[in-house]
């Protein structure tokens, strides 16, 4: 069951069998810019970057992005920077894995963001999406379509936060502008 999430929608990360999720993956996929003829190499590449910021109360404690691929505690891992995108067939081009059981006890929110490092707005990027997957069985929990997202270069996607003994996820979908996650911190702060 995939939820096509809308802004502000909240889902609890409970499995259908009642167990809580132990590992989630945020996947980001987009279509590489089409090459044009002979001078294809001059075609602008599109580089979207997925980041995850870990918060303890409203204070950022760690961040996972293309220059820091693993959170210091090892619970959040970025599988590596993709700077050109894929075929746009639905495969993830960048992924961030979160081992929810290993997240340090003081971290109570993890915010996922997407930036356009090369500056194209989401209005110009083809077939871009972001999704949250239950990593233990590959089931898609939620999906966001970025394409046609308007004249902004970043988006605060979603946050995963502790609720009770487990975790819940909230779709945020706030547009923002910025090249890397640092530019987004004010926008993120308002979403906490």
């Amino acid at each position, binding site marked *: 069951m995939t939820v096509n999430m809308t802004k502000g929608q909240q889902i609890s990360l409970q499995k259908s069998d009642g167990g809580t999720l132990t590992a989630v993956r945020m996947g980001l996929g987009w279509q590489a810019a089409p090459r044009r003829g002979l001078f294809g190499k001059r075609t602008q590449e599109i580089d979207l970057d997925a980041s995850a910021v870990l918060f*303890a*109360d409203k*204070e950022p*404690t*760690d961040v996972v992005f293309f220059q820091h691929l*693993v959170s*210091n*505690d*090892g*619970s959040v891992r970025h599988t590596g920077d993709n700077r050109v995108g894929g075929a746009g067939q639905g495969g993830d081009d960048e992924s961030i894995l979160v081992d929810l059981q*290993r997240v*340090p*006890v*003081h*971290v109570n929110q993890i915010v996922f963001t997407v930036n356009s490092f090369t500056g194209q707005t989401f209005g110009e990027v083809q077939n871009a999406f972001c999704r949250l997957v239950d990593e233990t069985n590959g089931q898609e929990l939620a999906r966001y379509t970025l394409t046609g997202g308007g004249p902004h270069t970043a988006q605060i996607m979603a946050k995963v936060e502790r609720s009770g003994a487990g975790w819940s996820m909230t779709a945020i979908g706030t547009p923002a502008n910025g090249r890397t996650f640092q530019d987004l911190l004010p926008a993120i702060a308002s979403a906490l």
Partner: protein
Amino acid sequence: MTAELVRGQNHPLRETRLEITVSAATPVLSGSTAGETLRLDPQDACVHRFPVELDAVPASEERVSVVLALPPGVRFGAVAAPYVAVLGAGSGAELASFTIDGLGDESALVALEFYRRQGAWKVRAVGQGYAGGLPELLRDLGLKPEPEPKPDPAPSAAQPVAGDASGWSMEERLYNQVWGMFEDLARTIAGYRSAVGFAESRLDQELDRALSDPRTRVGPAAEAARDQAMARHTDLVDQARAALDRDLAQLTAEAEVVEPALPPAYAGWDSPVWHGYSVPEEPSMAVRVGELHLPEQPALRIPMLVRLPLERGLWVDSAQDRRRGQDVAVALAARLMASYPVGAYALQVIDPSGSASAALAPLVGSGVLREPPATGAAGVTTVLSRLTERVDLVHMALRAGAPDALPPDLDPAEQLLIVNDFPYGFDDRAITQLRYLADEGPSAGVHLLLIADREDAHEYGPVLDPLWRSLLRLTAVPDDHMADPWVGHAWTYEPLLPPHGSQVLPLVLRQIAAARQAYGS
């Protein structure tokens, strides 16, 4: 017409497309075997029906057996006798049947057997039971039981196993596992420290807030606010500690199975593997140069494994304890020698003042060190010039693309140069040569092991800084100067020395010397 068979009786068959019916009082597994193929009815049930196509049996196979097996812990003697019937699949007529009685402790049996006789198939009532159950039965029929699919163990309850990492060999798997444990410990401690640090800063903030608010500055309100802040702090720290303890318990359990499985080059001197040491036929992939631990769990020590051949020289910092520094260096040299096959590693020593002769005695006495330690300025010059020339020759040969064109008298072994009391006895030229060896030696098979107190070289000023930086600093006494590559914690490095009174070092050196003699080298 049904033929009621008794044990051992046979009966001709009119049809070859058969259906077998097995009835038992309790659920059983049943199926047929032909040659090396076992076909089991997927569920265990009281009644089974399955087809046997005798025409489809390869000509090479002489017989097909019908087998039954009880679940573990049940035996045929305790249940009603099972009954097997053979029906013609076309006619539906019962051709033969057999009640298998007279069984006791057996938990598996061969009920019937179809066999070829003069171009036709016959059935025989066998009724052979096996007390050892299905495995014994299958062995008897010349079959191996298929491994049963095991349910996935819960990840949290997973028992640690030595070699549980990727790699082409056990040695590589253990190397990766040790580094994996190193990373896991670094990260779990990082999570713990981050949580505790956060709890502390939150406590400070909350106390400040309580003080700055006139309503909660004094009196019972102040106390309540303070108590609440403290309780929140304690609660978070306790949670962090619980998470840490869980991880530490897991890593400790892993260390307990990994340590005894380590080969000599990876193992501590107190490991029993050293007592069974023999010179290896292949160079080791890595060598243990010490142990690392963090203050949160000093008992959990991670072996510090360094890849071989060494990519950078080693510096045993003897500032704290000169003699101990020499002992650490000698034990390291012995360990390096022991990690290579006969003739693949050679040792040279510069001891300008002769101050390390007591520490070097095991190397000299065993004959592992072929030439006596070089002494005086002349000794320094001779050894350094020889090794510098060697590095030059190897580099020239490599650059020329002719690595085979080295002079025949050049020792092909990797060279480890121990320098004691650096820079005593070194002139400017010798210093330059040593720096050259530190930079260019590793790629030409020349490695440095310096025993030095940096203070002794202070008059050289910053000239030697690149040299110190290029060497891996190991200390003679435990010291928290080692940083991990992931989070950058300050780890306490502890050097490796044989346990007090242990004879393991002379024993290993004797083995090396004896192996050399046996090879006539």
